[in-house]
């Protein structure tokens, strides 16, 4: 490996990354072409509705990559990544709310509709600044990042790992969900933020904007993937994998394990925040339901189905599960929970390496063990 190559561009020379990026770019190009070039009546035409749906899937894919980064390579099963996703989404939602300006139902020049409805007189302090795009986009990264930093700092410092960490991340997102459901919080209560008009001065409802958002999500996924790949392939990534497989041993070798964990955890949270921020303008609403612990566990299933510790597996899993969800809830909504529940059981019992394992791509490392420390030989 050449020393001149920066760590960030290194993954671009890997075969698997090139394959993934190639497939992603090809898919983006095909969808764009089918959407723009073909007339609406054509059987192969991809409608704008479908484009937005695909954009939503790509957001989930980016979220799944973020989860895979911490679960697959760090051994931290976060059951609270939905919280980071939702925080990023809320930051974006607040910006979009401020963009509505006086075009709301009540026509108030500054206050969003729900605040006028609740008879608030002035904007709460934490809503200031969200009328500026740069500030809002910064917050998309900082809000989840800071939460992850504080939470991770406390948790990793006192060596809360494994099952305990999973449970308290779940409690974290549950607490946030309860908090955001409160009207007094100033985030729209259980209705959340919605009724968006435009983003960066562009009307959100037009077909061109929809396609643009889809492509932007695709680019974000590509960049996120490369970033994660770069982290994983770096020396830092090696330490992470060592931590995953034998935390105590890594610590004895002189590595400050908690620092590595914290860094990767924060990066992952920020990626999740970006995914949430791209998700909100496409689906047009953000509400506290995104904080629900079930959603966070579902993300983990996407990763498990695709194959953890591979990154591309996370993308595959997210796409498959969400496509299946769309189909099922349309055709027979009652069966969806059976299918999802069955998938959880089947994947964990029969497919511990997920679809990536089925593809036969052999990674040289030993397969990840979910417990952070090697337990004594079981049974």
């Amino acid at each position, binding site marked *: 490996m050449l020393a001149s190559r920066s760590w960030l561009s290194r993954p671009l020379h890997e075969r698997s990354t090139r394959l993934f990026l190639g497939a992603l770019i090809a898919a983006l190009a095909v969808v764009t072409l089918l959407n723009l070039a073909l007339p609406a009546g054509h059987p192969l035409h991809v409608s704008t509705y479908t484009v937005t749906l695909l954009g939503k899937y790509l957001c989930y894919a980016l979220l799944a990559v973020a989860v895979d980064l911490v679960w697959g390579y760090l051994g931290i099963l976060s059951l609270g990544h939905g919280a980071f996703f939702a925080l990023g989404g809320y930051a974006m939602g607040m910006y979009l709310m401020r963009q509505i300006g006086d075009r709301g139902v009540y026509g108030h020049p500054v206050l969003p509709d729900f605040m006028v409805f609740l008879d608030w007189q002035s904007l709460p302090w934490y809503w200031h600044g969200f009328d500026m795009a740069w500030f809002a986009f910064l917050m998309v990264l900082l809000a989840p990042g800071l939460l992850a930093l504080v939470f991770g700092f406390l*948790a990793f410092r006192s060596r809360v790992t494994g099952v305990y960490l999973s449970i308290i991340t779940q409690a974290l997102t549950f607490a946030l969900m309860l908090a955001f459901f409160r009207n007094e919080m100033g985030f729209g209560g259980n209705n959340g933020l919605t009724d968006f008009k435009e983003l960066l001065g562009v009307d959100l409802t037009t077909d061109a904007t929809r396609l643009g958002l889809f492509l932007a999500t695709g680019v974000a996924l590509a960049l996120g993937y490369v970033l994660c790949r770069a982290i994983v392939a770096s020396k830092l990534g090696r330490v992470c994998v060592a931590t995953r497989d034998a935390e105590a041993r890594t610590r004895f070798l002189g590595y400050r394990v908690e620092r590595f964990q914290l860094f990767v955890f924060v990066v992952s949270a920020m990626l999740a925040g970006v995914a949430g921020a791209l998700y909100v303008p496409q689906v047009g609403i953000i509400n506290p339901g995104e904080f629900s612990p079930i959603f966070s566990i579902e993300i983990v299933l996407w990763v498990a189905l695709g194959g953890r510790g591979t990154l591309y597996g996370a993308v595959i899993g997210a796409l498959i599960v969400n496509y299946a969800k769309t189909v099922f809830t349309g055709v027979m909504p009652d069966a969806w929970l059976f299918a999802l529940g069955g998938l959880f059981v089947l994947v964990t019992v029969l497919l511990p390496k997920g679809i990536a394992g089925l593809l036969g791509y052999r990674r040289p490392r030993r397969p990840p063990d979910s417990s952070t420390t090697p337990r004594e030989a079981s049974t």
Partner: protein
Amino acid sequence: MRMIRSLVQGLLCLVVVALAAPAAVAAPDDDGQALLEALDTRSYADKGEAIEALVASGDERTRRWLDALLDGKLQRHQDTGRFVVVLENRGRQWPVADALSGERLGEMSRRELDRIGINNALRGQLHSTLAVLDLRVDDVRARREAARELLGNVEAAMLAPLQQRVADEADGEVRRLLEQAIAIHRLGQGDAAAVEGLAGSLNPEARAALRAAARSDDVALAEAASGALAGIEQKLKLNRGVETLYFGLSLGSVLVLAAIGLAITFGVMGVINMAHGELMMLGAYTAWGMQQLLPGQPGLALILSIPAGFLVAALAGIAIERSVIQFLKGRPLETLLATFGVSLILQQLVRTLISPLNRSVVSPEWMSGSLMINEGLSLTLNRLFVLGFALLVFAGLMLVMRRTRLGLEVRAVTQSRAMARAMGIRATRVDILTFALGSGVAGLAGVALSQLTNVGPNLGQNYIIDSFMVVVFGGVGNLWGTLVAGLSLGVINQVLEPWAGAVLAKILVLVFIILFIQKRPRGLFPQKGRAAEG
């Protein structure tokens, strides 16, 4: 047959005629008529006196007249001057009865009748007068009700009959209430001696009277009243404290019930069972189903559903262990995901097979109602039962773990699986039994919960995070820790609730636990020794 019927009819006719005759013909039932005549006056003050005269007369029809007067149904016929009681004042033609004899007079047009009107002052007077009248009934409960009605509603004219009642009354509770009612009245008149009678009373009326007296110009009276008020406030504060503690313990007992099964499977086996809440749901549905099987016998159904709920949940637990968990040994995070899948399936199964809607389970009579400690404090019985049940289940589990062969083997496997196997303990069998035990306890929790909330497919989901919190807070693998953690979290939640609100209290508790885990990653009562590693 026919002869008999006609005979009976004839007799009946005779009786009716005989009854109706005196009232219809020899009308001047002078006393009653005179008393009612006095009511038919324009002056409300005179009416008030007439009412008092009525009560003083001791006429047994007084109650009926006053009731009718209160409802605006005591009326007078314009032409005959006869007093009637309107039985039904809807439409144009009203069925009426003679006020004096009670004889039914058929229908009269509303235009022929004049109502004997009352105003608000009279209405108040009537209420308290009726209450005094009610004090003469035989039923103790009705008497207490009537006495309570009198608090703050005593008029000067009622004092004499009331004091007579106090002297005659056999029931202590009624006597106490009446004395208070009289004291409230005296206090209103500025009688400082009455304060003593109200000291320590928790009735809102007594407090209102004392508060009014505390503002009076009479210094001695005001001082005495504020002294008594302070005493009452003290007592109320204690009451509120006890109430909060009770609700907290009640909530805590539910948490303990929900978490203790988890503490066994999680703590002892290292298995994260996300379907634990759904096992509780199965227990709750068993209680519901038992009640459907035994309609009209909620008590028996509930008692039977305790073993049934245990069995159903334990069998479901064994099925989960055999089909899923045994393949995921030593991979706790995967177990978490798989059992979460199981929980989704169980939820949907109930939704499909039974109903997505909530079902309510009827509480048996001996569990409904409440235990009254004093006027300001009553403890609902169903919560008390659940609290007791939780402690019982806990004691039972402790007994199993400490005193039985199974408990010994479970503890051995927990501490060192390999060594236990080497000593001839069949670890797989222990796993199955432990999981069945934990699941069965979840079923028991469900049966208990069915008495507190509605039974629905989401029942378990609402408790799963809380119960994990309890187990982690208490220290994994420690049943005492679970008990202490559950009860204290319940109490903390209730203490926070008044000033933070229910949701915020819950959030604060969650944040508190998250921070607590940072400080003590192994919970309140950490395991020591080898079992602590890993």
